[in-house]
């Protein structure tokens, strides 16, 4: 059937398509950030927008994050639906006050009188030796602080659907895309992220995880790039007769605890794969979701494959030593099953 023909997009193109389609139907949506205009975003996710919508709605900003993050909050509260980009999640420190004390709290402070319909896009992740201020994920930092929804797609289908849902959402959404999944050749390309993506409008519900591979022996729960490591590990485990289930969280806030619990109830084993730092983060929260609920389902202590609690080293040999990968997941399973 011609109407179900494959239409593979990279995450970068899926994001740009979602934004463009939304902007055509809703004049309140506009984009601002550093190098999102003529350059089309360092990671390609605003490519083509300035040509279609012009400088009024696609606004390159000065390197003034406190000002433009604050301006996004103000514009959102005043009736617009801004999409803001800051190209590296590592760069948020300077403007974090506007994010966690303003953007994330104003709905609550106002008792719901005020809406803050904004999307904050940022890149995460390393693996290409860009050093400790250009390679972090800090998923847990955003997810920890109440008042912002947090999504992190692992493929183009989810990227478009989550972006549509995020723009329509009346609360702030932090949209975290992994550089290694963007389909930008110069960062390497994870082929599994480039998938069939419908042209028509659809949404992926914020707060819904996805079981991307079914299995019965172990649940590997992850997000973003980690999902691809998990799928590779699952394929490897299958060769030794182990059936691994892979859960793609897709959203961190709200966290789909039901899907995590249902999966672990079925498999009895849990490995969380997270490129963010090991302690005080997503991996601990996922494990807590299970063990607070029902420890009787567990056949082994839950494990995590996460980035050690050190700044991200530059040298390739050290960075790769720290990053999660399929081999580490397989080795972790073997220890659990032993």
């Amino acid at each position, binding site marked *: 059937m011609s109407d179900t023909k494959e239409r593979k997009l990279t995450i970068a193109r899926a994001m740009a398509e979602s934004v463009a389609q939304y902007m055509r139907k809703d004049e309140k949506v506009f984009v601002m950030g*550093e190098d999102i205009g003529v*350059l089309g975003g360092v990671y390609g996710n605003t490519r083509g927008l300035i040509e279609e919508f012009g400088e009024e709605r696609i606004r390159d900003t*000065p390197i003034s994050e406190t000002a433009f993050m604050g301006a996004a909050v103000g514009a959102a509260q005043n009736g617009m639906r801004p999409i803001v980009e800051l190209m590296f999640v590592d760069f948020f420190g300077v403007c974090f006050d506007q994010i966690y004390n303003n953007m994330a709290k104003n709905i609550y402070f106002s008792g719901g009188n005020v809406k803050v319909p904004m999307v904050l896009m940022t890149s995460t992740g390393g693996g290409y030796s860009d050093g*400790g201020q250009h390679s972090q994920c800090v998923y847990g930092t955003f997810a920890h602080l109440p008042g912002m929804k947090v999504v992190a797609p692992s493929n183009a289908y989810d990227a478009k659907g989550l972006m549509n849902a995020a723009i329509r959402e009346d609360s702030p959404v932090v949209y975290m895309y992994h550089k290694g999944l963007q389909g930008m050749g110069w960062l390497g390309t994870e082929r599994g992220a480039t998938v069939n993506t419908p042209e028509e409008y659809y949404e992926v519900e914020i707060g819904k995880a996805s079981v991307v591979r079914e299995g019965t022996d172990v649940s590997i729960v992850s997000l973003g790039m980690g999902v691809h490591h998990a799928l590779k590990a699952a394929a490897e485990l299958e060769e030794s007769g182990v059936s691994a289930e892979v859960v793609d969280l897709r959203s961190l806030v709200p966290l789909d605890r039901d899907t995590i619990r249902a999966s672990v109830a079925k498999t009895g084993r849990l490995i969380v794969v997270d490129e963010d730092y090991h302690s005080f983060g997503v991996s601990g929260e996922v494990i807590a979701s299970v063990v607070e609920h029902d420890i009787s389902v567990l056949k082994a202590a839950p494990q995590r494959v996460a980035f050690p609690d050190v700044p991200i080293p530059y040298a390739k040999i050290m960075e790769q030593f720290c990053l999660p990968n399929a081999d580490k997941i397989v080795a972790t399973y073997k220890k659990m099953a032993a």
Partner: protein
Amino acid sequence: MQPTLEQKMWMYEKMVVSRRYEEAIAAAYMEGKSPVFNMANGPVPGEMHLSNGQEPCAVGVCAHLKDEDTVTATHRPHHQAIAKGVDLKRMTSEIFGKANGLGGGRGGHMHLFDDDVNFACSGIIGQGLGPAVGAALSQTMQKKSGIAVAYIGEGAANQGAFHESLNLAAVWNLPVVFIIEDNSWGISVSKQKSTAVEKNSVRAAGYGMPGEYVAGNDPLEIFKVAGEAIERARAGKGPTLLELQTSRLAGHFIGDAEGYRPEGEKDALEADDPITKFRSHLIEQGDATEQEIENIETAAQAQVDEAIAHARASEDPAPEDALTSVFA
């Protein structure tokens, strides 16, 4: 304030070392990155921000500095590091991610720290401003004579940290010289599109400090103006803001297609290369003969080659070294 002959020749030498260094780094960077350009590959992975064209800003300022003076540099730090006297071999090893690099391979090209000459840099815009103020404060509180120089790009003048740091340095009358290297581009966004004033130097008035714009990308002019500012700082007369017009001859990073540049801009900048101009000046003024200049250039190339060879021959860190040096 005019440089001595010795200072002039030092400036030329450092400019040439810096340019030859960037050329060598660019060549090493491209190894393993063709036919497919993937930043993760080759002996020098990650982003690479070259300083070609900005050498006068480094030498004209650093000619006045001593080891105890602090420099905080940016994500584009090589020219400043070289002019400040950072150990070229250890710096190169760091850029190659080797165990004997400045940070044992933990930092990389945007995170070069050499405590011996009080040099540091950072990968985030405007981040060195506060630490430069702090270095100056420390020297003052300890009754020591060092001063601090904070280098930023013109894009960073639109950061809140710029306002806060200049005000703090002024209100505490600290020996800091704020240097803006105005290469007119913040990645793809021009100064004109990002900055409300034509010259950031006028902003100095808002902090009650002198501010000056130096046009021409000329090491001698920079030497003069920077020298006066540094003399002021050393005399306890407080901070100064200088904005130095310069040119970014390379892209923001290697691999940047620079589609945002107006046609012909790059060619015009290359035709106005500060090293070529300074070279001609030295010969025309009778400061050096063609042969003396060539000797400097040969020695510069040798120094660079030696540093690159040293880095290539050095050992990789052990993978588990990643877990050390988190705490002092």
